[in-house]
């Protein structure tokens, strides 16, 4: 019988672990902004719009023979466009943001289905709907891993330089405007970072479950710390530990990796809530 150590010597399994760690760093850092800025629904909208980009890329690749238009690039284009539309609607239009989220969410998925339907499958064989929607991190190639690592590094550098700006913007927009900040531009940068993170995380857990990894580790960290930098750090550590645990379980059980990771993170969140509630009750008892 193949042991887990045997699996670890396989290149694709190594890629799987490294891609997951990169995605987890993004979930800890960008996920913190998603949670504290109450952007969970927006993130869900952007994440689902990426399906349209994947379908678009397959269509362009197969019909127009454009080899460089990879599914990941298509997803990035659609996610960034969705982020721009959300910011423009929030800042300029009277349209309610949740309405726009609903529209982007559904239309993005519909565009993906239509493009996948009309693509030429004799030229390009697409990944299955199941793989795109629920992820299969075992399929991450070395070049995809490199892309994920570079994008992660770029996002971290931008966050390091924009940390103060994001903090002011998300805490007090009036103060941000008075202090001369171009709030639309900074908001746009934040949404684009969320969009890029969604595409990178989609490689690990698939489009549908992005929102779980972008939300749960940061929310769990927020149960135990109320400092933003600590929240980012703890969110990243929790995300890495739980996702790697999920991957080991997926290897042991031969279960789908994305779903196993999300399940591990979800169970840990419920456990964290219970621990927090019990410790609160304990300290209230000690006080009385």
């Amino acid at each position, binding site marked *: 019988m193949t042991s887990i150590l045997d699996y670890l010597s396989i290149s694709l399994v190594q890629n799987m672990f490294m891609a997951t760690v990169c995605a987890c760093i993004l979930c800890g850092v960008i996920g913190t902004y998603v949670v504290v800025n109450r952007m969970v629904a927006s993130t869900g909208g952007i994440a689902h719009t990426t399906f349209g980009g994947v379908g678009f890329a397959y269509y362009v690749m197969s019909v127009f023979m454009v080899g460089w238009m990879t599914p990941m690039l298509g997803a990035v284009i659609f996610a960034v466009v969705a982020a721009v539309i959300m910011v423009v609607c929030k800042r300029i239009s009277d349209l309610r943001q949740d309405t726009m989220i609903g529209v982007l969410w559904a239309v993005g998925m519909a565009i993906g289905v239509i493009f996948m339907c009309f693509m030429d499958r004799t030229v390009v064989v697409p990944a299955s709907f199941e793989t795109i929607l629920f992820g299969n991190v075992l399929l991450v190639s070395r070049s995809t891993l490199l892309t994920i690592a570079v994008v992660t590094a770029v996002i971290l550098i931008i966050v390091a330089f924009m940390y103060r700006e994001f903090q002011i913007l998300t805490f007090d927009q*009036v*103060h*941000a*405007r*008075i*202090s*001369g900040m171009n709030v639309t531009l900074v908001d746009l940068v934040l949404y684009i970072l969320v969009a890029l993170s969604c595409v990178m995380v989609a490689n690990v857990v698939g489009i549908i479950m992005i929102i779980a990894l972008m939300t749960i580790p940061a929310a769990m960290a927020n149960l135990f710390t*109320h400092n933003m930098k600590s*929240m980012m750090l703890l969110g990243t550590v929790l995300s890495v530990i739980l996702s790697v645990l999920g991957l080991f379980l997926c290897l042991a059980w031969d279960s789908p990796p994305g779903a196993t990771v999300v399940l591990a993170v979800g169970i840990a969140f419920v456990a964290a809530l219970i621990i927090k509630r019990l410790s609160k009750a304990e300290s209230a008892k000690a006080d009385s």
Partner: protein
Amino acid sequence: MDELPIEIRGLTAGYGNEAILRDICLELRPNDFLAVIGPNGGGKTTLFRSILGLIPPMSGSIKIYGEEPSKGVRNIGYVPQFGAFDKSYPISAEEVVLMGMRVRKGYRPYYSREEKAMADKAMEYTGMEEFRGKRIGDLSGGQLQRVLLARALAPEPKILLLDEPTASLDPSMKDCTYDILKKVSSEGVSIMLITHDMASISHDVKRLACINRRIICNDRLEITEEMVELGFHCPPEFLKFSHSSGSTCKCGCGCGRDKE
């Protein structure tokens, strides 16, 4: 002649096509302490938003030391209502105060030693130095109010604008807030505050204005019959200032009164 801290001439302002304020003329003088009173919906917030450059005037002009609000706003420290904040936001009192430095320095990725020293000074000034590491969710309303005041004071502004600074505060906290403002005023900062609550206005205020779409100013801390007619529709004797100068300080702000 020196430019006035704030000079408003014939200002009409509002949202969309609806004018909330009509033909407003108002000036904030050097070392002034002006309270603008008026009922809810009378245009107090619209006046502040116009001064801060958050909404453009429909007609008329606003000058801050002779400049347009977009440029002159760097001279202003603004204290919003503390109730408007998300108290679950993971941020400490010190981080909030440091935010004030952006008004002075613009975009910089990190806070310098000088900026941190100025923020420390502002926290000491408002008696918040011992709360610097506390999360804002763990602060009382009065403490958060003083953190926001420290944030406005940190870049050493020439003008201080306060939106309902004593709303929802107990009498002792109100007195502490006014004692800090008195100290700020004595250092030459021009202060303007808006409130709907006449009873919360301190005797330290030098001038009074009443706003209800139009504005009437008085060079003394005295309500005239026209002001009552404009803003409150009741006899002037019903409206009294109630700053209790003899109450004891509970907040530890260093305002000079004995602590309980």
